[in-house]
């Protein structure tokens, strides 16, 4: 049961690129397509996802997991959207983002025990280890970016950090090798290991036996990327550029699953605290998102709103979207 769950962490190096909004609408779309979805606010310390769903004063938060030892099901909050439940991290305190590794592990195990087909985990910005660990829960993670060069830079750094964190955790018993990818403990680490090629080279110089396993880790790491707030055709190239850059320096096959155009509808939906996929399913951002959901769920999803009611059309594709 737990192993069949599809966890989709949504992260990104930069703040304000639309991680929370896209996570929410992604969860809504997948839920409307018929899957049981749990949306979890993983931005510990700066939660806001409940506001996007219009849920005021959430009755539970993830803190209850540690305080009252509540069961995972008891933390789920109804959203009013069929098949979609929500876990809030509201009521978080300063320092919540810096919970220790044990607590992170507990949360991860809690997520994996959730009774759902898909868990969408909205993460906070940055490249702290906690965020990277949550991002690395699943190989099918999503990285968000906007077309601006600063955002693209941070996205690259985020992907590299996530990959190196994976490798670092694998090499935790081999400090000579771990220091190549973990600069937090080893300040004197040489900066020559900035790409996968240099990493491979340096690891083979120290311990060639680890090269194969590391290659496997790199091969398994297949995040997807969504470019948000696209305003021109040129902006679309940001995704392609990122794919090329990640392939060149990290040897990772980044999956460019789609883009969302810049629109006032999205902003309006935030103001109204209603996901734009429900508020205006025929809008351009909604159509973009439906294509992304179709890619993720291997379906052709189409939403229509008539007389205030949402009608869903879903057709299963023959070719697969996600890797199993």
């Amino acid at each position: 049961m737990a192993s069949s769950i599809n966890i989709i962490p949504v992260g990104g190096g930069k703040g304000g690129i639309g991680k929370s909004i896209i996570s929410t609408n992604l969860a809504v779309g997948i839920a409307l397509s018929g899957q049981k979805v749990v949306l979890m606010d993983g931005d510990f310390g700066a939660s806001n996802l409940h506001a996007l769903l219009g849920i005021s004063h959430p009755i539970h938060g993830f803190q209850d997991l540690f305080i009252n030892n509540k069961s995972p099901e008891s933390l789920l909050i109804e959203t009013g959207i069929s098949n979609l439940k929500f876990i809030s991290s509201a009521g978080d305190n300063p320092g919540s983002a810096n919970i220790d590794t044990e607590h992170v592990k507990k949360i991860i195990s809690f997520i994996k025990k959730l009774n759902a087909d898909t868990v969408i985990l909205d993460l906070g910005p940055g490249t702290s280890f906690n965020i990277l660990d949550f991002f690395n829960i699943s190989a099918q993670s999503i990285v968000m970016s906007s077309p601006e060069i600063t955002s693209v830079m941070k996205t690259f750094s985020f992907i590299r950090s996530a990959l190196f964190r994976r490798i670092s955790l694998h090499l935790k018993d081999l400090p000579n090798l771990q220091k190549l990818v973990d600069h937090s403990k080893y300040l004197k680490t040489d900066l020559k290991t900035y790409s996968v090629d240099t990493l491979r080279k340096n690891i083979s110089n120290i311990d060639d036996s680890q090269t194969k396993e590391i290659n496997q880790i790199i091969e398994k790491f297949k995040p997807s990327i969504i470019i948000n707030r696209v305003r021109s055709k040129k902006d679309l190239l940001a995704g392609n550029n990122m794919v090329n850059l990640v392939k060149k320096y990290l040897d990772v096959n980044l999956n460019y699953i789609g883009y969302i155009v810049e629109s006032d509808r999205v902003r309006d939906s935030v103001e109204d605290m209603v996901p734009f996929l429900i508020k205006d399913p025929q809008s351009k951002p909604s159509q973009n998102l439906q294509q992304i959901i179709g890619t993720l769920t291997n379906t052709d999803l189409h939403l229509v709103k008539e007389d205030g009611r949402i009608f869903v059309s879903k057709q299963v594709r023959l070719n697969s979207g996600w890797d199993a």
Partner: protein
Amino acid sequence: METIKQSVATFFDKAWLKVNAILSLEEMEILGSFQLVLNNILADPLLLVLAIGIIASIPYIVHKIKTVQTEKEKRLDALLQELEQLEENEETHKGKSLLKNQPKGEKTNHPNESLGTLNNEAYGNEFESSGSEKTNESLEELNLTTQENINDDLSWDSSNDKWSDLYDHLSQNLDEDKQVPIQQSIKMGGDISEDTLTQKPLEIMDHELSWESNHDEWTELYDTVAEKPLETDMPAKNSIEKDNLTPEIAATELTTDQEEQDELDKFADSLEAISKIEKESIETVPEEEKLEEVTNFLEAVSELEKEPMDITTPTPAFNIPERIELSLKEIEVEELIKPKSIEQAETTSTIHSKLIKEKSLTAGPLLNSMLNSSVSAKTDALVSRLKTFQAELETRFQSLETESKTTQQITKTTSDKKNNYQPASVNYKSIKKSRSNKEYLSQLESFIFMAKQKNINSD
């Protein structure tokens, strides 16, 4: 009616036949419908009259449209001409050099001029008082308008030989008078600030500040004064305070002082009012009496010349001892802004007021004739009004004295502010926005990786 109808019909028939013969219109099918319409019109007298009326009105309408168009064009031309004239006037005012011998368009080093740019932009809004540049322009306008008003009101035509002779006589004498206090002021200034005025004061003294002195002297003298900040000239205040300024100098000083425009406006209004009163009184007097008045006037002027100190005492309105700190500069400015007009304006106002006073006191032939006429009562009223004007002027110039101090402070603070700003050395190199995708990628890489890493990567 029938005959008219027949004649019209025959006329149209003839015309139609001729046109038909020339163009063979009958063969054209389209004209068949027109023929029917024409037949209908010819059959109905009302339609015929209407058609004739319409045809007749066409040339009138065309003519009307043309006239309207031409009228519009004329108006536009007139407006454009006005605009050009205005622009020309502005150009002539702006192009006027501050110094007599200074070539047009040469930039002057007036302390307030550099501030003018600041005043126009950000600093100008901070101070509610008018900017220095604006004051300059309006000052010239004021001088011109004052002169025009005086000329108009007093019928002082510059082409009039009689008045021009009088003017020459007055200006010659007054110039001589004026030089005395100027010399005194420079002497006093030299005593107090010898260091600051060492460049040319002796030469100026040697030449007795004659207006015909050569270009270099005046330029150097101007530069000497212009380079100095306002504060360095401050000691001259007290020195001049001891000397009683002649009204001419005080008046010219006032006219050249740029910050006192508002007061000058009021002063101009007052002058205008005075001159109107004068005009009225002169107009009521017959031509013969006017000649007598002129002779009286000349006599009064000669008396004034004999007793220069007496002029200052009855006109405390012009006695502003605190405002001599720009004396040297203003002497030059005095020259540049039509000295004749200013002198003319001021001397006429003062002398006329003096003259009227004297008239009333001495009861000369002019007054007798005026008393004999029915205007005497009116003259008394006018004299009393003149007195009130004089009182008003006194109070206004007293307030002007204090205002000038505040404007000085404002100018000082503005210059201080300007001095507080130092030019920043900014060596900002804007990176050109990448055009191709390849360039974009290389730029992206340059942002992500360090220089060392780049070298390793290239190896």
